[in-house]
C-alpha cells in the first residue's frame, strides 16, 4: 500500500466528529481507531467531541467492570500519536453540566460557529 498512499505529497484534512457516549455502542472506539490510522499515515487530523461524545473525555472511567477497554485511557495517548487538534463543543459541555475539570485531558472548547468553519475547511468529514 505504501506506493498507493503518497501521504507526504497528498495530505488531506480529515475531521472526525465523535458524538456518541464511550460505551453502549462501538462508535466511539471506531472513531478513535480512524483518528489514529489517519495520524499514523501523516494526515492532517481534527478530532471533535460533540453531543454525548463529550462523555468520552470524562475522568475516572472504569470500563473493566463492563468487560470493556477504558476509552479515556486511550484518549490520553493522543498526543503521543501526533493528534494535536482535539476540540470539544462548548455547547455540548454546557448542556451536560461539564467543566474542563471533569475532563481527562486539556481540550480546546470551540463554538458552533468555529465548528462549522472547521467542517467547511476539511476535505473529509467522518461523523459517528
Amino acid at each position: 500500500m505504501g506506493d498507493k498512499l503518497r501521504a507526504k505529497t497528498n495530505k488531506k484534512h480529515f475531521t472526525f466528529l465523535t458524538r456518541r457516549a464511550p460505551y453502549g455502542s462501538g462508535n466511539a472506539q471506531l472513531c478513535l481507531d480512524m483518528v489514529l490510522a489517519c495520524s499514523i499515515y501523516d494526515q492532517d487530523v481534527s478530532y471533535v467531541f460533540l453531543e454525548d461524545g463529550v462523555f468520552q473525555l470524562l475522568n475516572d472511567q472504569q470500563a473493566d467492570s463492563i468487560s470493556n477497554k477504558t476509552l479515556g485511557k486511550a484518549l490520553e495517548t493522543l498526543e503521543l500519536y501526533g493528534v494535536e487538534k482535539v476540540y470539544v463543543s462548548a455547547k455540548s459541555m454546557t448542556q451536560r453540566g461539564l467543566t474542563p475539570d471533569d475532563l481527562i485531558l486539556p481540550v480546546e472548547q470551540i463554538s458552533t460557529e468555529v465548528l462549522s468553519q472547521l467542517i467547511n475547511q476539511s476535505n473529509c468529514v467522518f461523523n459517528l
Partner: protein
Amino acid sequence: MKFSIIIYAAPYSSQAATSAYHFAKSVLAQDHEIYRLFFFSDGVYNANRLAVPAQDEFNVQKAWEKLIDEHQLDSIVCVSSALRRGIVDASESNRYELEAVSLSDKSTLSGLGQLVDAGVNSDRIINFG
C-alpha cells in the same frame, strides 16, 4: 468524480447497507468512478458468503458480489472488524484453525490504512450506517 463508500452497517438490521448498495449503483450508472468500497465495523457482514436470506428477500451480500464483480471494484473489508465477527478468508481460517471460510471471494481483508488512502485519493467519501 471519484467516490469511496464506507459501510458501517450490517445488512438486514437497518436500511443503511442496502442504501449504500443503491448509491454505489447510481454512482456507476452516472459514469462516476468508485475508488473503493470499505466495509467497517458491522458492515463486514455485507461480505459474509455464508448468509442465506429468505428466497423472496433482497440478498444484500449477493448484490454486492455482483456489483463488485461486474465493475471490478476494489472492495476492502477491515481485517480487525472482520476477525472479531468471524468473517475470515482462507488464510485467516488456516491461521486460526477455523472450520470455514466466510469472506466473499470478491472482497479482500485489509487494514485502516486503506480507508485513509481512500480519503486521500477520492473526491468524495460517503458514509453509510
